[in-house]
């Protein structure tokens, strides 16, 4: 924004000189303070007396858990990033798209759990569950775009954001009205319980499945965007909607495709999330949704590799952060503050580096 190309006039430079320092200094002090708090906390945690300290295997569990959950977050984050890249809008209701996929799969998995199909054909049933969740999430995403967002395509930027918040509430409470308010247990095939030993590491089977699926999905998406014709038109629309439409690209269709892809990925994430936490309810989309958005911003919103990186980093931060930093300060039940960590990261990224880790560092996002 605000390309100041009037040349290096002396006045402008002086103005800059006068205005910038105090703000920079305050931010710098804040950064140093936060870094100090984190480092001292980590140091205190690691030097706790041996009987209070976490063991090496606990740390390993934290890391694997963080990567697995971060991978799920990354999948949802891709949905945010794709839509933002093309429409420059935050699809606040994306968490609810994810939730509907989980509910749809739940009804099948619970029926199959009773009939024994889930345990007798674990891989086939998982494949069908993935297909169902993807289909339903995709449908919800497309309907959402059609009903709530398309009429506002050219509205000022805050209008779609407010609509998205409204749509998120509507979808949540629709699920509540349709399926009831109580949480329901999500069945997991017996074949996925227990652990596998890979490279001498003992890993939860579900976590292995999660990580492999996410790697495949991200690779597939990258190939799709880089290699296919649709992917190319998506990139064109992201670069400049108007020019793209002049070049004969059907912008509306590209936008619907983008929402559909986001929905498909959210559907995959929904199954992975459900088998990890073994429960579904109508508010399950809220926190993962915000975490995913944070991940997308952390990695640099609009960038696919950024979303993937951001997801894994955030997952690690959520699982390691409270244990590593807060335990040292003897804060009771540090894991209650896990979500505060997410939000703190979000706020700090936006304040210090709004472009994210892999994005360009624009100070002003208009």
């Amino acid at each position, binding site marked *: 924004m605000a390309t100041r190309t009037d040349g290096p006039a002396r006045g402008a430079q002086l103005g800059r000189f006068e205005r910038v320092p105090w703000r920079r200094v305050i931010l710098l002090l804040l950064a140093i303070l936060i870094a100090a708090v984190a480092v001292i906390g980590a140091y205190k945690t690691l030097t706790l007396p041996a009987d209070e300290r976490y063991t090496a295997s606990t740390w390993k569990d934290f890391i694997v858990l963080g990567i697995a959950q971060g991978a799920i977050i990354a999948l949802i984050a891709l949905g945010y990033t794709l839509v933002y890249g093309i429409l420059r*809008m935050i699809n606040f209701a994306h968490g609810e798209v994810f939730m509907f996929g989980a509910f749809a799969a739940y009804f099948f998995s619970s029926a199959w759990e009773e009939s024994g199909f889930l345990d007798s054909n674990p891989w086939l049933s998982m494949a069908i569950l993935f297909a169902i969740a993807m289909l339903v999430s995709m449908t919800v995403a497309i309907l959402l775009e059609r009903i709530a967002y398309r009429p506002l395509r050219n509205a000022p930027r805050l209008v779609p954001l407010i609509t998205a918040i409204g749509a998120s509430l509507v979808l949540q*409470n*629709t699920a509540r009205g*349709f399926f009831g308010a109580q949480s329901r247990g999500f069945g997991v095939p017996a074949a996925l319980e227990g652990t596998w030993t890979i490279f001498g590491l003992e890993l939860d089977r579900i976590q292995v499945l999660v990580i492999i699926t996410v790697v495949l999905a991200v690779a597939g998406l990258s190939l799709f965007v880089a290699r296919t014709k649709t992917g190319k038109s998506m990139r064109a629309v992201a670069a400049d909607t108007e020019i793209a439409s002049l070049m004969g690209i059907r912008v509306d269709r590209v936008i619907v495709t983008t929402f559909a892809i986001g929905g498909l990925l959210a559907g995959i994430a929904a199954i992975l999330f459900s088998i990890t936490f073994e429960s579904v309810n109508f508010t399950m989309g*809220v926190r993962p949704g915000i975490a995913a958005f944070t991940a997308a911003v952390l990695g640099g919103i609009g960038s696919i590799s950024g979303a993937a990186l951001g997801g894994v980093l955030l997952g690690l931060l959520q699982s390691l952060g409270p244990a590593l930093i807060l335990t040292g300060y003897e804060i009771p039940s540090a894991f*209650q503050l896990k*979500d505060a960590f997410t939000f703190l990261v979000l*706020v700090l990224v*936006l304040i210090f580096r709004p472009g994210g880790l892999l994005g360009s560092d624009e100070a002003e*996002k208009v």
Partner: protein
Amino acid sequence: MDGVPTGSVIRSGVIGGLVAIYIALVGLYTKFADLALVGEQVTLGRVLIVAPALITAYAVTRPRVVAGERRAATLRQGLAIGALAGLITGAVFGAAVAFAEWFGVERIREVFVAVTEPLIDFLTFGMGVPAGLLVLAGWCVVGGLVGGFARTAPLALRRPASVGIVAVILFGLLQRIVPIVFVELGYEADWLYSPITKGLTWLGGLFVFALAAGADILWRRSGDGTRDRIRTGVYERPAARIGFLVVLLAVLAVLPLLLGTVISEVLGQVMIYVLLGLGLNIVVGYAGLLDLGYVAFFAFGAYATGLLTGAMLNTTTGAAEPAISADLNFYAAVWIVMLLAAGVGLLIGAPVLRLRGDYLAIVTLGLGEIVSVITASKWAQPLIGGPQGMRGVSKAEIFGLNPQDHPQDFYYLALAFVLFALFVSWRLAASRVGRAWTAMREDEQVADAMGVSTIKYKLLAFAMGGAIGSLGGALFAVSLGSLTPASFEFLVSITALAVVILGGLGSLPGVVVGALVLIGLPGLLREFEEYRQLIYGGALVAIMILRPQGLIPNVRRSRELKEEEVTQDAWARDGTGEIEAVAAVLPGGALGVEEEDLE
């Protein structure tokens, strides 16, 4: 028929049917089946059966542009199209009901919890599947006819009829409030509202319809000159304005005496949200900074009031003294709370000065959520009670009033706060500060270039907004006497935002109306409680799509929202504003939107 888009009618009819199925699945029919509006037969549930067909028909008979020419349907066409759309809606809906009966209600219920035998009974009017479906389709056709009529009948006919029907539904919904007023005033109410069904009697329904329709006819008859005189009289002549204010204040002062404790309590809740709305209105409406973490100020106001007035922490064993605490009088504490909240506003505002638009929204959302998470965590136990919360907030007794225990007394306290906040907001908007905010909202860079210190005014907006929002929190703390973290969720921010947006960003009467509609109506009808969030969400989406300037728009603000269309905007012309505002609130909404274009 010439110019009747058959494809569009069929499509709309199917959409209407899907909407009806959605209403059934989400459980609204079951919930409102027995809420009588008029007599025993007209229940809100039944109105909802007719509504999808009605709205569909109303939408599909809209004037269309054919070959560059605007064509409005004639009455006969309108009725025919409406009936057809209604029939298709009824057919789709009926097919779904028949399917449910054939497939087995119990089996569907395993997924959709609202599908029950009573629901099928209700939708088939107790007549079972083949016969009842015909009745259902018949009512949908009636709905379609009414919708077509509401669009294409002569203005002199459809306007009073629409206003009358909307008034009957509104009075039917206000069944907990109007009879009480009658009784308190010493009048008999049984002829108007039945003591058995609680809704209007048939006589009452007719009376309300006649009154509303008659008022509308008189208002239309009186001619433009009279209307303008009345309008300018109220708005511009100082004497009339002062008189209006005095009457308004007098009504507000006697209201709780007329309404009894239950409704005074509801009004108290409404006023808490009016305060939140007013505070948020400064940040979002005046300064254009979308704040999604406004709950932070609400929570801060509530807990700070608790701490300053000597509340105790709840613990598993009893009560404990908070780590920091004072034992001040509420009326001394509230000023300190406001000052501190302004300080918190500065703290929140300072780091986010450089961010704009949705990035600002997300950062504030994050900050608000941090506050919620920390409030509910064990870490916060020694200061504010953590998950257990605190109790024993000051009762705020004054002049023999006891706001905590008597809802009517609370009403007066809340009213005083609201009037104070309204006055501050009103004067701010007209001041140099207000104009600076407007400039900044419309174009930050231009404002900066014109010498408006955007940093200063942004900070000021956060501080002022925070201070007023904390007043809402302080009131909330007094009203309950105890605080738990469950009251300070993200939903509070969303509700406040919905209040401001429904009423119209930057509009003070809008905030009051928004709070009355969003907090007052659901509060008056307990049945709505479960669907409160659904209504908020739906209201946000619908307002943004249909009427982004809100119910009672702030003129300048709405120009920004619809910049390019400003000249053809219905509200910008004289006269349509208020009527639309009433119509858009109610089911069947937007009755007056394109009135003038047609005639």
